[in-house]
Structures are given as structure tokens and as C-alpha cells.
């Protein structure tokens, strides 16, 4: 340092020191100017030596030279009269005017520069009582001969002093790095132009060369987060200092024209605004923090909305709509915060935009030999990514600049090869750094967020194998480069000994040591949980404590499980995971332990046993070198967590899952922890592991906070602090600040891999290649009877629609219309659907409206239809019934009572013996008899056998003035076919003829229709399975197993609602869509359960559509614009979608 000629001399002396000390409370540490002053003040040498002990180490590795960043042109003022003071090109020395200080004594001691005194005193008199601090800002310049020449105008002095002064220091106790308040720049000056003979007040044009002082750079990047945290807390002295420094640097950059070579648009935007306002730059994040309470009321932030629209390239409509929503919400602020956090689809796209595989240059790597399957290329890429995420060698990835930082280029050439070309500036905190502030620091693991059905389980299994065999040397290679947090690096260094220690973890000192450090960092420690009610607050305390000495802390008491991976999955997937892992793995290479139910408790024993075991086939499986995988459910995790929280170090009898330090933890369907306050999430946060993974197809379900849980679980610093996350992400997002999205993008890029099935690789080929999908739309014509029924319903609906349309009531009576549409759609499937239980009430309402005429028409039509080939018999019974009914109109209660349930028969059926019963009761009874192998018979008179198709349903019409009561009959058991059913049967029969064994899936939205399909299939001898919303989890598994394993033709009937996460129907390759969905996307999703990874055959999809019905209209609308159908029926409320809805409805009802 001292070999550099100091060009800025601090004019301060002892008095200044004293003043400075008075100004500042904590002055233990020496100011950084000391070494520069050293040559002039021998009394300081002792101090310097003392400081050297502190500094020398750092010096060795930091930039040793000041670095040039640019030139500022300044109009200085002459303070002298006369000739020869200065000439063009002459060098000048800038110095701080210290002549005026608060303390009069300071002035008196001012001896060196007596010539200044008069002026300073004068000005001080003028301003003494008002702006004392301003006086501090004066800078004068001397020529090389030591004579003062002039003064730098105060507007420049103002910021320069902040960067040149040693005036403010932060105490170490506040956790702020000293360098943040040290001298930041050095200046050299030249006179460009001036009069030969100067008069006081003449303009002297100066050129100032600005250098960044070597000590300006933040050395420990891990301090950054703390500094940032501070910036959102209350304004402190330290923060003021940081703020002043930041503003100063901004000015310097502005005047020197230095622009970042890498930044993000939002920071630039902020910068621009700050400049235009002519004010100091708004500390955006601080503002954001204060915004939490009053989201949405701040006008300046509102302006930012325009920025959002510019930034999000696609789907601006959505964004605008959100913005509108905000405007309107101002009137009623309650509960709005929830909505603010919601993420719409275009935002979601933006969030994921940098998380894809493209542009990452992932080099596919082969799976380990013990991995049995062949990975697809994109899976190999994922393996590569996951492997690099685990090993920390994620170079392409590490290049993501931390979103709060900007990258600048020095304007001089490095003086040695070790000197960097670039430096980094955080415009929000004012920090400078000469090491790359990477967005991800501490992460080992990440979020595997590939879309559903791309094989996340398989990829994760490949990783299990990969990092079992991969050489562990990265543990050593990982040097403390300064990028990582110090504590973290320490932990990694000591990780290796743990690896070696396989069996005897308890008495290993190294292990204990590393755990202590980890405790500080990740701290799933017993100690914390005892006193800490709030999860966020204790964070700072242990950190501080750690610096003071880890030895004070109790050992965490973890047991290391060095080769064991913990997999947490939803209970229903326990078996699937086990099967999948075993299917993927060579025998003996993996041991899966399902830690659930009875298997709990003896974990350690199971893991330690290295025995050779005989499997079912009598082969000896050698587990001596296996990977252990413990699979457990969220439920078990929660109960273990509760046990863990209750236990103290002394009371542990059985260790819980949380008492181990796992090699790796994986949570599947990670959106299960999206709510951070749930036990699921809390327990997941608490799991201790070296590597952490979250698998989920939906990293953000609908709120940004969903992400917080994942980041917290993954320990992505600094985002795992909720207050931090909230003030830097959630709140800015809520106030429409584009920075939020940008920030999330960068965070996501650092820890999320998400590909979608339709993505393409670098060669433009789809990353996922599936067998072909053939979609046929089969147009069908109604039978004349069906047409009559349909038309009758349609006419009635249209009459009603037209009436509503006239009155302009369309949207108000939307539910009414929707019910009509529903009926029409059902009528297109099967006429019986429109008369069975669920719709009865509604139909009578409508009949009242229409005087009953249309209703009777339909009923008689149905009766005719139902009678089918047996019409004479039906007529005969009908007559008898009608007659009998007329005779005793007043049926007493018992007459109308079902003989089985003793209730009034809701749907009475008539047996051939003319005995009546509830339809449901008698069918239940018949089922029972059939199960017992007995013949069906009338429960009353035992006449039998009765076939279900002999049952006739009695349908009572509404009494009218002409008729007392109209009674119709129709076949009660819905085996009667319809056009659609017939078409399905024909297709299935064709399949049976051509393919022999086939597996097909039949989708419908109506479970009642699936009932009919089932009956029809039963009649025609097709084996079928059924899955709908009411199917229990257990039965689901049975059904899906059966579909997979059954060796023969089988048809799965499935309702829309039954489809859930991860449903895999790839063993089928024929799909029949029985009805038309409003939203084509949902239809596609349904098909994708069959047409997904794992499908080996071409998939044939048949969409049935009856011509000239609501179905082909809906298809037409689908074609017009899929999204609008969604809008039209999804209940969005913007004016546009209202118009669209009306248009769609009119389309449906236009004949």
C-alpha cells in the first residue's frame, strides 16, 4: 500500500481523530486511511502495525492495485488571485477541507492550512447553524508545489466525500463488514484548462481520474446477505453509511459514464428513474419492505406496472388484467393480499422461463452400471444437472449473476493475470465486490420440476446410483473459493471424514465438529427447538454464537447415515416408489426400506445389516455394497417430527428420521409442503441431509409463497428467511414490481430444472418422443327416437334461451342455462340420462314453466323408446297401471311404500309379477342373490327368475287439467343402448377381432353414463374396470394394477374427476372420449394419461360426436379458440369474456 503515492491526503490530525471518535460510538477498529496517512504521521505507525495484523492476510488475496474506472470533468473554482498557481495539464492534488468542524477546538488546531481558515470560517459563519455537515463536503485542490489553487463545487464534493472520507464506520458488532464503510475511491486530478492569471471565483476545468480503492471491495461475500437484511430493517447509522456510499458510487458511475456490462432490466429501470428524479436512488427493497403493510397504495410503484407489460413478452392480457384488478381492489383492501400473491399463467411461464434445459449446455451423462434402464437423452441431461448440483460443479449454472448485483468492467488493464477485469456492484446496498456474486451459494440439490410424466422417479433413481458410485473427491475439490459461505465450506471440508466413518459415528470427533458447524447453518438442532417458537427469529442468534465458538454448543446428536437416501412421498406412492427403484436397479445394488407402519423403529438395524439375503427365487442377493433408500410417507414424517420435537437429548430412546443426518433427502410431490405453516412443511425443513431434492411437477401451485417452502427446504440462502423472502419477493410482486419476477427467475435458474414435454433439444427435436397419436373424430347420427327426444329438449331450451336473450338476462341466468346445456349434453349420450334421478326436480320445474306440454312429450317419447321391441307388453301394463291409479287416486302411504326400504318409492319399478319396489332396492337385492348364486325373484311373491331387463320403471307425469295423472313405463335397467353406446361397442368388437387382446380407456364426464357403459359392456361380455371420484385410494391401486397386469382385453371406464396426479394408464393404447369437453385442454390432459412416457404403442383416440347437436357446436367453438371456451365457461368476469361467452352461447343455440 505504502508504495503507492497517496494522492489524497487526509488533512485530519489528532483533533480530527478525536472528532471522528466522538461522532461514532464504536471505534475499536482502525480506519482504513491509516496506511495512507502513515507516511505523514509518524505517531500513527504504532497503530498501523496493530492494524496490519488484521489486514495483512486479506491483503494477500485481494486486489492490490487501485483500479481505474473513469474520468470526471469538473468546473472547479479558483480560490486564489494571481499568476502561476496553475496551468493546463498540471497535476493537482485533491484534499478534503477539514477546516470546519463542529468543535471550535478543531478549528484552532488547524494550523497547516491557515490560508484556508479565513474562507472556511466565513462560510461556517454563514451556515454554521444550518447545515454543518455540508461544510464537510468541501474539497480543495492544490498544485504539486503544495499551494492551494481552488475548490471543487459542492455538488461534486457532496458525493466525493462519502467515498473519500473515513467518516463513518460500522462496528463489527453490528455484523457489517468494515470494508463497506472504508475509503472507496482514490482520485487523481489534472487541470484541463484555466486562466493563466487566476482570480478568485474563476473557473478551472479539471479532470478527475477515479480509481476504486483496493479495500473497497467486500471480501466476504457471505456477509452480503446480512447487509441486505439490514437494509430492510430500521434505518441505522450503519445503514445510513451504506446508503451514502451507494449514492456516491451511483454518482461516480453516472459522471464517468460507467455502465454495467451485466445487469437486469429492472435494476436499469430503477437507475434511470433515480437519475431522472434527480434524487438519490430509491432503495427499492427498503421501500418494498415498508410496503408490506400498505401494499397497493403507493403511487410510484404503480408506475412500474408499465414495466411489467414490457417485460413479460407474452400474454399481456393476463397481466393487464391483474393490474386492473389491483385498481379496483383499492376500494376494498381486505383480503386482497392473498390474491396479490397469486401467480397467473403468463407469470408462471416467466418464472419457469430460465429453468428449462435449453441454454444450459447440459452434457448428457450415462447412468451408472448398476442402473438397469436406459435413460432417454433428456433424462441423461437431467442426471448431469442433478449430479452437478449435488457436487457443486455446476459451472454453467454458477454463472447466474446474483439478481441484486451488477457487473462492471474496469477501464484499465489488469496489472497481473490474477487481477480481474470486472467488478460487481450492488446498487441496492452499495457494496462492491471483486468476486462473482453467484446467485446460488449453498445449494446441494435442487428442484427437479419436469412436467408430469417425464420420469422424475427414474431420473432420481439414476442419481441415487450415480452418486453412489461417483468418486467422492469433489468433497475435497470443493475449495473455499470465497463464493460459498464460509460456514458451509467448512462443513463440506469435514464432510469427507464422515464418509469414511461408516459404522461408529458416535465417537467420532470430526463428525461432531462438522455437525456443530452445520448446526449453525442449518440447525435442525435440539437446542434451538426448545426455546424457539418462531422459526425465523432465532436465526441470527445462533449465527452470532457460532462465531464466538462452536465449542459452547451441544453436539447436535445426529447419527450420520452416509449411504442412505430418505425419500418422502405421499402414502399412496410408497409402493410405486419401491417398485420403481427396484425395477431400475441391479439386484443387490439398492436396498429399499419402506419405513411405514410396522416397519418403523428398527431402521438402524435394517440399514446396518450387510447380509446376503435369499430372494423369493432362491437367488442369493448380496447387500454388502448396496445403496440404502428409506421410503416413507408425509404422514410418518409428521409423526416422527412430533416425536422429535418432544424428545430431548436425554430422552431419546428410538431415534426418529430427524435424528439422522442423511446422505440425501428427496421429497416427492413436493407441493405437499407448499404451505410453510403445515406440519408437512415444518417436518421437511427439519430433515438434516447433505443433499436435498424436491420433485414436483408444479413448483408453484398458485402462489409465490409456494416457492418459499421449497427454497426453505432446500436451504437456498438467503431466501429461506421468510421475512426476507417476503420483503424482497412477495411484497414487490404484490405491488406489481417486475423485479420480483426477475428475481425469482434467477433464483429458479439456480435451483430448478423444469422441462416440458413439448420442449425441443438443441437440434430442434422434441426432447420427448412418444409413439404416434391418432385422433379420429367419429361423427354419429341419432336414431329417430333419440333425435326426437333431443330435439324436444333442445326446442325447450332454445325457447328459454331466446326469452332470456331478449331480456338481456343471459349472463344473470347463467346457472340456468348451464343446466340446460348439461341436459343437452347428456341427451347426446343416452336418453335415460335426462330423466334419471338427478335431473328430475329440474325437469319438473321446467315443465311448470312450459305448461307441462313439452315434458309430457319427452316422457312419452322415452316410454316409446324404452319399450323397444316389447311394446305390446309395455302398453298393456301401462294401461293397467293407469287404470288402477285412477281408481284409487289417494294412494295410502303403505301402498306407495317400497317393501324393502319402507320408504316412498322414489323410482318405482314394476316386476313382471306387477309387484313394485324401489329401483335401487330391488337391484341391490338382485345383486345379492346373484352373488350368492341364487336365482333372482320377486322379493314379495318369489316369482322368478326375473331378468333385470324385465323391470319397468314407473314414471309419473305431472297432473294436468285434462288428465289426472300420466303414468309411463320404461325399462328400468339401463342396458338399453344408445347411438353412442352402440358405436363404442362396435369399436370394441372391432378391436377384439383385429387385435385380440387390447386395453382401452373410456372417458366420460358423467358417472351415470359410465354406469350405462358398464352395463353395456357387461352385456357384450367385455371385461371392464372402473375408476371414478368415489374410488378409494386402495381400490384405485387395485384397479390400476389390474389394468397393467391383466393378461387379456380389458376396458377401463374413467371419469374426469378420477384423474389425479401421476395417473399412468400407459398399458392401454386405445382411448374413447364419449363426450365433448368444454375445454379441449382438459380433453388433451385426459388423453395424455395414456399418451405419456412409458407408452410403447401408437395411441388411437376416438372422439365420438353426434352430428347436429350441442356436441358438434362445442367442437366448433373449440376449434375457434380453445382458450375462449375456457373463458366462456370458466367464470372470468372481464367485459371481453362476457361478450365472448354470449357469442358462444348464441352459437350453441343458433340453428
Amino acid at each position: 500500500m505504502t508504495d503507492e503515492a497517496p494522492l489524497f491526503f487526509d488533512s485530519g490530525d489528532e483533533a480530527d481523530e478525536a472528532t471522528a471518535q466522538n461522532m461514532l460510538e464504536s471505534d475499536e477498529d482502525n480506519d482504513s486511511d491509516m496506511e495512507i496517512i502513515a507516511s505523514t504521521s509518524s505517531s500513527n505507525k504504532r497503530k498501523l502495525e496493530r492494524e496490519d495484523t488484521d489486514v495483512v492476510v486479506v491483503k494477500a488475496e485481494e486486489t492490490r492495485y487501485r483500479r481505474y474506472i473513469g474520468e470526471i470533468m469538473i468546473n472547479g473554482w479558483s480560490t486564489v488571485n494571481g499568476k502561476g498557481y496553475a496551468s493546463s495539464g498540471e497535476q493537482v492534488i485533491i484534499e478534503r477541507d477539514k477546516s470546519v468542524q463542529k468543535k471550535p477546538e478543531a478549528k484552532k488546531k488547524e494550523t497547516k492550512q491557515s490560508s484556508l481558515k479565513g474562507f472556511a470560517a466565513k462560510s461556517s459563519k454563514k451556515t454554521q447553524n444550518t447545515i454543518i455537515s455540508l461544510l464537510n463536503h468541501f474539497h480543495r485542490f492544490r498544485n504539486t508545489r503544495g499551494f492551494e489553487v481552488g475548490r471543487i463545487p459542492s455538488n461534486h464534493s457532496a458525493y466525493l466525500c462519502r467515498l473519500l472520507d473515513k467518516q463513518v464506520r460500522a462496528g463489527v458488532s453490528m455484523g457489517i463488514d468494515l470494508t463497506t464503510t472504508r475509503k472507496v475511491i482514490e482520485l487523481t486530478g489534472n487541470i484541463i484548462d484555466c486562466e493563466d492569471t487566476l482570480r478568485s471565483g474563476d473557473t478551472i476545468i479539471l479532470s478527475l481520474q477515479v480509481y476504486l480503492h483496493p479495500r473497497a471491495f467486500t471480501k466476504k461475500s457471505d456477509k452480503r446477505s446480512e447487509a441486505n437484511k439490514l437494509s430492510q430493517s430500521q434505518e441505522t447509522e450503519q445503514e445510513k453509511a451504506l446508503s451514502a456510499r451507494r449514492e456516491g458510487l451511483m454518482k461516480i458511475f453516472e459522471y464517468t459514464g460507467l455502465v454495467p456490462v451485466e445487469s437486469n432490466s429492472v435494476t436499469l429501470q430503477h437507475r434511470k428513474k433515480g437519475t431522472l428524479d434527480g434524487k438519490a436512488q430509491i432503495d427499492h427493497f427498503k421501500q418494498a419492505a415498508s410496503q408490506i403493510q400498505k401494499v397497493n397504495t403507493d403511487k410510484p410503484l404503480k408506475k412500474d406496472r408499465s414495466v411489467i407489460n414490457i417485460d413479460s413478452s407474452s400474454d399481456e392480457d393476463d397481466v393487464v388484467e391483474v393490474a386492473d384488478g389491483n385498481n379496483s381492489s383499492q376500494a376494498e383492501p381486505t383480503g386482497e393480499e392473498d390474491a396479490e400473491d397469486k401467480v397467473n399463467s403468463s407469470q408462471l411461464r416467466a418464472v419457469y422461463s430460465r429453468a428449462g434445459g435449453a441454454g444450459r449446455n447440459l452434457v448428457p451423462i450415462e447412468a451408472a452400471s448398476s442402473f438397469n434402464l436406459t435413460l432417454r437423452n433428456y433424462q441423461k441431461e437431467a442426471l448431469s444437472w442433478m449430479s452437478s448440483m449435488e457436487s457443486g460443479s455446476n459451472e454453467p449454472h454458477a454463472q447466474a449473476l446474483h439478481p441484486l448485483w451488477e457487473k462492471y468492467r474496469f477501464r484499465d488493464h489488469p496489472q497481473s493475470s490474477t487481477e480481474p477485469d470486472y467488478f460487481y456492484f450492488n446498487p441496492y446496498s452499495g457494496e462492491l465486490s471483486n468476486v462473482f456474486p453467484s446467485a446460488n451459494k449453498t445449494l446441494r440439490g435442487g428442484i427437479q420440476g419436469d412436467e408430469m410424466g417425464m420420469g422424475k422417479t427414474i431420473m432420481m433413481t439414476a442419481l441415487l446410483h450415480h452418486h453412489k458410485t461417483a468418486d467422492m473427491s469433489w468433497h475435497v475439490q470443493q475449495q473455499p473459493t470465497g463464493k460459498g459461505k464460509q460456514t458451509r465450506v467448512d462443513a463440506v471440508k469435514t464432510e469427507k471424514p464422515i464418509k469414511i466413518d461408516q459404522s461408529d459415528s458416535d465417537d467420532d470427533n470430526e463428525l461432531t465438529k462438522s455437525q456443530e458447524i452445520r448446526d449453525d447453518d442449518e440447525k435442525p438442532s435440539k437446542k434451538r427447538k426448545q426455546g424457539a417458537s418462531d422459526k425465523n427469529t432465532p436465526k441470527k442468534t445462533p449465527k452470532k454464537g457460532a462465531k464466538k465458538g462452536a465449542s459452547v454448543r451441544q453436539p447436535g446428536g445426529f447419527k450420520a447415515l452416509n449411504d442412505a437416501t430418505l425419500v418422502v412421498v405421499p402414502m399412496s406412492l410408497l409402493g410405486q416408489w419401491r417398485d420403481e427403484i427396484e425395477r431400475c436397479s441391479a439386484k443387490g445394488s439398492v436396498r429399499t426400506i419402506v419405513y411405514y407402519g410396522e416397519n418403523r423403529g428398527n431402521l438402524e438395524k435394517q440399514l446396518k445389516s450387510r447380509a446376503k439375503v435369499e430372494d423369493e427365487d432362491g437367488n442369493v442377493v448380496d447387500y454388502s455394497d448396496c445403496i440404502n433408500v428409506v421410503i416413507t410417507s408425509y404422514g410418518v414424517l409428521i409423526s416422527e417430527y412430533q416425536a422429535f420435537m418432544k424428545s430431548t437429548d436425554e430422552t431419546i430412546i428410538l431415534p426418529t428420521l430427524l435424528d439422522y443426518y442423511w446422505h440425501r433427502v428427496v421429497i416427492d410431490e413436493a407441493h405437499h409442503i407448499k404451505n410453510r405453516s403445515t406440519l408437512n412443511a415444518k417436518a421437511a425443513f427439519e430433515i438434516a441431509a447433505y443433499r436435498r431434492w424436491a420433485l414436483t411437477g408444479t413448483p408453484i401451485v398458485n402462489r409465490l409463497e409456494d416457492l418459499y417452502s421449497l427454497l426453505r427446504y432446500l436451504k437456498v440462502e438467503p431466501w429461506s428467511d421468510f421475512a426476507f423472502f417476503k420483503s424482497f419477493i412477495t411484497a414487490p410482486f404484490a405491488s406489481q414490481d417486475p423485479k420480483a419476477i426477475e428475481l425469482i427467475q434467477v433464483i429458479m435458474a439456480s435451483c430448478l430444472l423444469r422441462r416440458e414435454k413439448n420442449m425441443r433439444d438443441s437440434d430442434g427435436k422434441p426432447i420427448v418422443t412418444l409413439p404416434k397419436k391418432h385422433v379420429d373424430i367419429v361423427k354419429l347420427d341419432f336414431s329417430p327416437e333419440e333425435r326426437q327426444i333431443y330435439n324436444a329438449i333442445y326446442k325447450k331450451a332454445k325457447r328459454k334461451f331466446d326469452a332470456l336473450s331478449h331480456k338481456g338476462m343471459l349472463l344473470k341466468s347463467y346457472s340456468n342455462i348451464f343446466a340446460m346445456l348439461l341436459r343437452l349434453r347428456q341427451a347426446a349420450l343416452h336418453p335415460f340420462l335426462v330423466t334419471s334421478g338427478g335431473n328430475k326436480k329440474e325437469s319438473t320445474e321446467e315443465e311448470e314453466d312450459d305448461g307441462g306440454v313439452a315434458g309430457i312429450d319427452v316422457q312419452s317419447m322415452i316410454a316409446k323408446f324404452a319399450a323397444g321391441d316389447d311394446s305390446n307388453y309395455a302398453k298393456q301394463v301401462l294401461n293397467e297401471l293407469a287404470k288402477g291409479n285412477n281408481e284409487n287416486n289417494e294412494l295410502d302411504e303403505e301402498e306407495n311404500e317400497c317393501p324393502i326400504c319402507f320408504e316412498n318409492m322414489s323410482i318405482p319399478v314394476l316386476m313382471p309379477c306387477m309387484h313394485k319396489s324401489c329401483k335401487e332396492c330391488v337391484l341391490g337385492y338382485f345383486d345379492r342373490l346373484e352373488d350368492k348364486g341364487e336365482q333372482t325373484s320377486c322379493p314379495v311373491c318369489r316369482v322368478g327368475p326375473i331378468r333385470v331387463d324385465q323391470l319397468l320403471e314407473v314414471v309419473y307425469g305431472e297432473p294436468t287439467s285434462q288428465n289426472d295423472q300420466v303414468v309411463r313405463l320404461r325399462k328400468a335397467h339401463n342396458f338399453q343402448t344408445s347411438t353412442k353406446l352402440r358405436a363404442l361397442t362396435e369399436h370394441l368388437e372391432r378391436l377384439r377381432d383385429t387385435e385380440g387382446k387390447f386395453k382401452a380407456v373410456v372417458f366420460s364426464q358423467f358417472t351415470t353414463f359410465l354406469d350405462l357403459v358398464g352395463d353395456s359392456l357387461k352385456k357384450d361380455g367385455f371385461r371392464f374396470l372402473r375408476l371414478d371420484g368415489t374410488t378409494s385410494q386402495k381400490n384405485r391401486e387395485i384397479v390400476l394394477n389390474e389394468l397393467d397386469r391383466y393378461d387379456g382385453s380389458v376396458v377401463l371406464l374413467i371419469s374426469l374427476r378420477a384423474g389425479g396426479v401421476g395417473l399412468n394408464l400407459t398399458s392401454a393404447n386405445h382411448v374413447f372420449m364419449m363426450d365433448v369437453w368444454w375445454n379441449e385442454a382438459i380433453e388433451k390432459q385426459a388423453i395424455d394419461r395414456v399418451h405419456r412416457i412409458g407408452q410403447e404403442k401408437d395411441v388411437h383416440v376416438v372422439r365420438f360426436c353426434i352430428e347436429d347437436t350441442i356436441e358438434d357446436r362445442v367442437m366448433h367453438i373449440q376449434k375457434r379458440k380453445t382458450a375462449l371456451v375456457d373463458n366462456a365457461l370458466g367464470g372470468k368476469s372481464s367485459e371481453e369474456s362476457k361478450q365472448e361467452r354470449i357469442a358462444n352461447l348464441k352459437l350453441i343455440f343458433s340453428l
Partner: protein
Amino acid sequence: MAAASLPKRILKEAERLQVDAPEGIRASPSEQDIRYFDVSIQGPDGSPFEKGIFSLELWLPSSYPMEPPRVRFLTKIYHPNIDKLGRICLDILKDKWSPALQIRTVLLSIQALLSAPNPDDPLANDVAEHYKSDEKAAIQVSKEWTQKYAQPA
């Protein structure tokens, strides 16, 4: 209307048995369990059980009325179709059950069974044998048992 409405059926039956009891039959549900009935049947006139009051217990399984009620004599009775434990051999209580039958019809059938013992379909073999070999003597025993055991308290 199967499962959900079953308790309603039981309530209705119980109520009707109270309001409109068949002659010579009393059946009342126990206070603890609506499915458990205390039953007494009067021996039909002209039968060996005339004047006797027979106690029975009747219990409705959860699957009632898809399954028949369980009925048992508590009073000792000398009858070829009723064994020492009071179990009754009656087809409608077994394979001939129909959900259209009810407690009332079951009890009436039992009453009828008292009038017409059927030794060809015996449950109590010794009694049946007795009825077959010497009906008079057997009827006499039945009468004696009725006098001895089936008198109102």
C-alpha cells in the same frame, strides 16, 4: 335406497308392531338397542302350546333386511322344529328369506309353526322322533312343558 334408509325401516317396523300388534304377538325394541326386540308369542288356540306365553329374542343384523332377523326362543318348548337352545328351524329365517318379509311376518310364521309342528324337517331330532313315533304322547309332553315353563309370570 338401500343402506341409508335401513334404520328408518326398523323404526317404522317397531312403531307398527306397537301400534298395530298382530294377535297374540308382542314385540318391543329394547331400550339399549333398537335392533334388539323382546318378543312374546301366545300359543295358538288348538295347539299343544295353547295358553302358553313364550318369550323370544329377536335381533336384526346390520345387513337387515337383506339378511333375515335372528330369532330364538327363550322359553323352553317341546317342539320338533325348535331345539333345546331355542333355535328355530324355519325356511324364511334361512334361505327363503326375502327383504319384503318383516319382523311381523316372521313372528306370524313362528306362531303358525307352533300350530303346525313339522317333524319331517326337524331341528330337535329327539322331539321329532317322539312326534313321529307317538304323536299323542309327544303332544302331551308339549302341553306339560307349556304348563310348566310358558306361564306368564
